[in-house]
């Protein structure tokens, strides 16, 4: 039982990372009806940006450590958001009139450009990088169940992000416009909503959330590598599909399920740890077969 609870905790951590990435996928799909496949790469780019910023800031001697960390996180998140909106300009805007699959192709290609770009242009980017930030090592144990400070912090941070996101979407004017666009693009356009602006803001938003996911990932697993975005992208996309593409809350549930499935596979299936992704994909395929619209997704009837 103790083991199960410990595994649930580790699975939850992984699940939160997946969920944060998957929410980005869902947010973008909801508004634009496209899959931005390079999203996970943008997320991990966030981690690399924060590393670069941190190296730069720690050269300025008179900054206290807490300020360095604060500035690092804030600027990395903002820069990644900007990169997200640039991605929209390069890879999505020219294809807005083309079939959605063209955007999938162009963003898959972009993902490769980001990954290989990091590998080639980041100093010795081919090898895994030790992430410079980490949470304090506090922990308390109760009957064998260990809860660490980092676990609690990650849950709190994820909670805050989703709280802010829901306020932004539901309470602000731009949020209203985003919701309107996601319901019906033409009608939104008729009502005078500036689509270019909405698309840019959505990309900014999704990428900032992604940057947080990338940084949390670096903090929790101590390591970032240029090619993490590939698997992260496929699993994040899967989680979003499981939850129902376009539904952010569904993406959270999908991410958590996949995280826990992976961690349980590693612990309880004999010799199962190399196959953990396979078990995750089997769950996804089962969902596609029996509930193609996802956990919280609505059934879409295509109209001409």
């Amino acid at each position, binding site marked *: 039982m103790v083991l199960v609870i410990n595994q649930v905790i580790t699975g939850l951590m992984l699940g939160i990372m997946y969920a944060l990435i998957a929410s980005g996928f869902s947010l973008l799909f909801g508004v634009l009806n496209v*899959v931005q496949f390079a999203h996970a790469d943008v997320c991990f780019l966030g981690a690399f940006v924060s590393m670069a910023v941190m190296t730069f800031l720690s050269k300025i001697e008179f900054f206290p450590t807490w300020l360095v960390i604060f500035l690092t996180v804030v600027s990395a998140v903002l820069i990644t958001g900007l990169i997200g909106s640039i991605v929209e300009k*390069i*890879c999505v805007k*020219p*294809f807005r009139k*083309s*079939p*959605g*699959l*063209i955007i*999938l*192709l*162009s963003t*898959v*290609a*972009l*993902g*490769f*450009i980001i*990954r*290989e*770009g990091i590998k*080639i242009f980041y100093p010795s980017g081919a090898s895994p990088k030790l992430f410079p930030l980490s949470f304090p090592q506090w922990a308390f144990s109760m009957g064998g169940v260990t809860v660490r400070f980092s676990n609690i912090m990650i849950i709190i941070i994820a909670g805050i992000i989703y709280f802010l996101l829901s306020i932004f979407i539901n309470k602000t004017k731009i949020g209203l416009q985003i919701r309107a666009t996601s319901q019906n693009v033409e009608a939104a356009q008729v009502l005078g909503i500036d689509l270019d602006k909405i698309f840019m803001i959505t990309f900014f938003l999704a990428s900032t959330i992604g940057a947080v996911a990338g940084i949390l990932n670096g903090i929790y697993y101590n390591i970032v590598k240029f090619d993490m975005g*590939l*698997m992260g992208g*496929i699993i994040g*996309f*899967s989680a979003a*599909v499981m939850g129902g*593409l376009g539904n952010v809350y569904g993406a959270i549930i999908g991410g958590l399920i996949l995280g826990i499935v992976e961690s349980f596979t590693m612990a309880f299936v004999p010799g199962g740890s*190399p*196959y953990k*992704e*396979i078990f995750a*994909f089997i769950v*996804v*395929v089962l969902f*596609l*077969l029996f509930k*193609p619209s996802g956990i919280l997704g609505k059934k879409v009837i*295509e109209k*001409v």
Partner: protein
Amino acid sequence: MSNLNNGSNDYSQTLYKKISYFLTIIVTEVIIFYMFINFLSSKGIDYRLFLLILPIIAFFILRGNQKITNLVKESYSRCNSFSVIFMILLLVFIPFLFKDNSYLLHICIMSGLYLIIALGLNIQLGSTGMVNFAFAAFFGVGAYASALLTINFNFSFWLGILAAIIISAVFGLLIGSLTLKSTGFYYALVTMAFQIIFHLLVNNLRFTGGSGGISNIPFPTIGKYSFSSSLNILGINLPFQANYYYLVLAVVLFSLYLAKRLYNSRTGLIWNAIREDEIAAKCQGININKGKLEASAIGAIFGGMAGPIYAHYISFISPESFTFHFSVVLICIVILGGLDNILGVIIGAVLLTVIPEKIRFFAEARMLFYGIIIILVLIFKPQGLIPERIRKYNFFKF
């Protein structure tokens, strides 16, 4: 009297025309062939690459000339079979040119294999509009199936290739049937998942040799003749790669024929209809599910066909040859060449296999370049190098 005169005049006219057609074909094809040979045998960026520019400039000068373009077009449409036969003759000649350099033959074989797989991908991505990220996996399924069967069950290579085709078709059908109810994104997702699962499985399973792969895959034989022995034609000793070169050439020609027939058939038309508009196609009474399943199975067959040849040629396979990256390279080939255009796929496959071998900085940042190529082509030339042609139904010839 005058009639007779006219007749002989006509006759000499047609003869003259025929000869000029033949000459045009011979000259253009020899030029293209020569460019290809130069391109292949250049070392890095050297003067031979610059020589390529000469014919290209000639092409651009002559393109403005209506007479010449008409002549070329006419000769290729009138003497179609001659042009094909002549090109095949030239290709048959290649091993003799490279008999001292088996590495160049190796590149030729690899580009032939890439071409076969890309033709399969073209059926899905180009004709039907299904984005498939698992073609490296189909290739791998074929390679592993044949390698395992020949090693463990003493299948011959030829039986192995047959089994590989059947097995990959089954996988294609399976993947296609999983996503019949949903949109293209889900098909893309399932193929990605299949690609990853395939790689993880062969990387970790015992009987596929894990990441160490399978080595010492037997060479194909015809009767007593083994493909590992050097080929002797007319007293000229060709390296052992020549065997595979001719095998690959035969399979490439067969696949091209198949692809062309499919493109011109009703099935090809149905695939196009599905790509353009599923609902409209449905309203025309087209069985969409059947069309999609056919595309997934037939596309996979092409991948499965190339796999065994690769496995038995290199005589070693490992999971690293069948990764997601390779799938994206194949997509890049099809997009660069031109969606749903067989000639385009040929050009894309040749360019993208030879260039990384030639230019060192390209090889190091290979995937970066492929990514950039895909995006640039999609933005600036979405039809690819050779745009899709409007279908003609007045002649069905190859």
